[in-house]
């Protein structure tokens, strides 16, 4: 099991450019999440998905879009990159979200460090 994988590891974008951050999991988890971590801050939820075809906004969704066409993949799209989107992005997955400790634990990918100049 590879767990949760993310690509790319690093990326530098110019203002106004677009890109897609890739995320995949091979644990057959229902729930998938995108977080961003800014320096000195906790993880902030951008978008989440409860299953293929179902996505919803988290705390900080502005400037991002997601899709979930398969159980395994959950890409995050930045359409018009802005300096405020400079951050480290983490994708995570969990089997459930309200099942209790044994199923709700989130597993994280290694992160993508994005810089927008």
């Amino acid at each position, binding site marked *: 099991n590879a767990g*949760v994988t993310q690509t790319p590891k690093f990326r530098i974008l110019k203002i106004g450019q677009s890109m897609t951050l890739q995320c995949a999991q091979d644990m057959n988890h229902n729930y998938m999440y995108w*977080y961003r971590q800014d320096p000195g801050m906790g*993880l902030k939820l951008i978008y989440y998905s409860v299953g293929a075809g179902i996505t919803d906004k988290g705390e900080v969704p502005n400037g991002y879009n997601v899709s979930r066409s398969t159980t395994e993949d959950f890409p995050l799209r930045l359409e018009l990159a802005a300096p405020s989107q400079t951050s480290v992005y983490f994708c995570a997955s969990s089997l459930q979200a309200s099942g*209790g*400790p044994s199923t709700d634990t989130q597993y994280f990918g290694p992160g993508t460090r994005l810089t927008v100049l």
Partner: protein
Amino acid sequence: DQQVKQNSPSLSVQEGRISILNCDYTNSMFDYFLWYKKYPAEGPTFLISISSIKDKNEDGRFTVFLNKSAKHLSLHIVPSQPGDSAVYFCAAKNVRGGFKTIFGAGTRLFVKA
């Protein structure tokens, strides 16, 4: 509004001694608390958790204590090892409330050999 606060950005401890990482929360609806550990260039990994029906949970060298009246939890690492040097995130959620997990800003632990 930070619902989960880790007020110490960093902590330095000698190898073999106890490390105590603290976390405070404001939302009384939280009933499940987690600690994640993060090494550089890696994602956070789950370390230990505690349900609000308990006040202590132990797993090897790691123990989490929960004081509900004070809305405070702490992670104890005994004895501390150099490999424990990492960033530790405290997180909280309401199990019946679904997916939303609130993370603290993290505490960077340095364990000196």
